């Protein structure tokens, strides 16, 4: 039984991937809050279209045949589009456009959405348990 074939599980998985990736970008922004010239990044909002017709792209990484080679990761293969904030709210004289408060709000938003998604997953699992007669 492949759980990802259940539409809700597939959607939840996509959503959780997106949330984890967004959290990563936001933490990059906050870590670089004092780096001169740094522009904050964010992900394109996760839309319903992504949820229904999202195909998993195979990771095409470079082959490492010598331990001095760098494996790397192809950014383009990542299923989510990354955007740079072109109209920042405020830019410091050194060119840094990270507003800490804004980023923290986004981090909290991501955490709450993650919570919601995991709860949904749990609920859905409970429904399946009921369906197969194992109780809650």
């Amino acid at each position, binding site marked *: 039984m492949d759980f990802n074939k259940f539409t809700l599980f597939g959607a939840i998985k996509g959503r959780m991937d997106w949330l984890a990736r967004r959290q990563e970008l936001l933490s990059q922004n906050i*870590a670089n*809050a004092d780096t001169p010239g740094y522009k904050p990044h964010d992900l394109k909002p996760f839309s319903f279209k992504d949820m229904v017709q999202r195909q998993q792209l195979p990771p095409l990484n470079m082959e490492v045949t010598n331990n001095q080679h760098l494996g790397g990761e192809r950014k383009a293969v990542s299923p989510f589009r990354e955007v740079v904030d072109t109209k920042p709210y405020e830019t410091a004289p050194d060119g840094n456009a990270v507003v800490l408060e804004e980023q923290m709000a986004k981090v909290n938003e991501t955490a709450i959405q993650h*919570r919601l998604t995991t709860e949904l997953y749990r609920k859905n699992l409970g429904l399946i348990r009921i369906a197969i007669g194992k109780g809650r």
Partner: protein
Amino acid sequence: MDDLLKTLRISSSGMKAQGTRLRVISENIANASSLPKGPGELPYRRKIVTFRNQLDRATGIDTVRVDRVTRDRSDFGRRYDPSHPAADANGYVLTPNVNSLIEMMDMREAQRSYEANLNVLKTSKGMLQETIGLLR
């Protein structure tokens, strides 16, 4: 899950960079009254930290690190104290170019950035725990 683990690494790099910055600030404050030993010698020169955004090629993430610690080129202060061993012919002693008000402000900023990174770390940890909690 992998993205969330990367988040932890990014936030800790930010915390480390801010920690180094705090160390340099404390050096400045501690040496705020380090006067020269004899006439013609220079007093303590203020240190400045600059941050740099570093791409970790193996994982494709942007971490932050301290670029270099430079010296502040601004002018030294002067104080009239003819009895001091380092006083020049006119009775003036050069004082370090450390302004404790600026250092305190810098310190608050470093503290604020450190806290922001710490909060992101906590949030990411919570998200990881929720994900792991799905196994229960």
